[in-house]
């Protein structure tokens, strides 16, 4: 009998898809994708208040949505210390526009065991 192969979807969400959304709608959109068992690569990052809102909404769902155990989350920012003058100006502008230069990865904890983050890389450890 053929063995069933499980798939994994990684979805890219460009900044333009969330830029005009209110915080609540941004969180809802991201959580809906995670609930569909997708790993999201988001261009940009959430504001600190949005990150806590994401955690609060996630916690509200754990125990209420079947098999949902939460999320793994990691953001990588370009290191402004390593940039030249023009790089810093560009970085400052990007920051003002919502830190589009950053990358945020969000995945369901039922699939992603751990995201190990350091300043230069994110390591995604998957569940067996």
């Amino acid at each position: 009998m053929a063995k069933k192969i499980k798939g994994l979807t990684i979805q890219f969400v460009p900044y333009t898809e969330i830029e005009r959304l209110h915080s609540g709608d941004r969180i809802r959109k991201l959580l809906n994708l995670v609930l569909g068992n997708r790993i999201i690569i988001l261009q940009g990052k959430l504001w600190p208040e949005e990150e806590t809102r994401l955690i609060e909404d996630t916690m509200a769902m754990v125990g209420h949505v079947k098999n949902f155990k939460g999320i793994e989350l990691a953001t990588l920012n370009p290191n402004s210390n390593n940039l030249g003058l023009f790089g810093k100006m560009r970085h400052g502008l990007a920051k003002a526009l919502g830190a589009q230069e950053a990358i945020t990865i969000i995945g369901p904890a039922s699939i992603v065991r751990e995201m190990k983050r350091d300043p230069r890389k994110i390591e995604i450890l998957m569940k067996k």
Partner: protein
Amino acid sequence: MFKEKKELSLGFYGPPNAGKTSLANRICKDWTGEEIGKVSKIPHETRNVQFKEKVEIDYKGKKLTFKVVDTPGIATKIDYEDFMKFKMNKKDAQRRAKEATQGVVEAIRWLDDMDAVIVVLDTTKNPYSQVNITIIGNLVARKIPVLVVGNKIDLRKADLKKVESAFPEYEVVGISARFGKNMEEFYESLFRLAKKA
């Protein structure tokens, strides 16, 4: 100079099992003779915000009164099966997980009530975890002064330098809350933090 000030709300934030309650206990025990809460090896032992009012710290002639607020560990995931690894039965593990999720939400909601916050991190763990960044990012956004405490420096795997390089913009003090190591330096840092509040 330190003027007579109102009671400062001092929050203890951080990921689960970093030693927030151990540190809050040590401070409360040192200055009031009573502990604030129970500690355990099982994560999410603190599942409600617990506080002690009028904790008067009289250190080297300086006096400050705090409301010590110990909060549940902030996490992005909670799986009851993780608690079962500590020989907990399924029903108790599920109850603990439910209470822990509510505790995370409660901890976040208390952020606005803090005058100053001590972020307690485990020096044997990776300091770059997103939860740590999120907590500190929120404190900065709310203009709440922060002191980063690297706990468990008594352990062989402890790496305080890594915590310092992860948060170069903040004062970082290494301690062992369990054994009371380096508390002198901690109290010096605490008074500097209170000045900013």
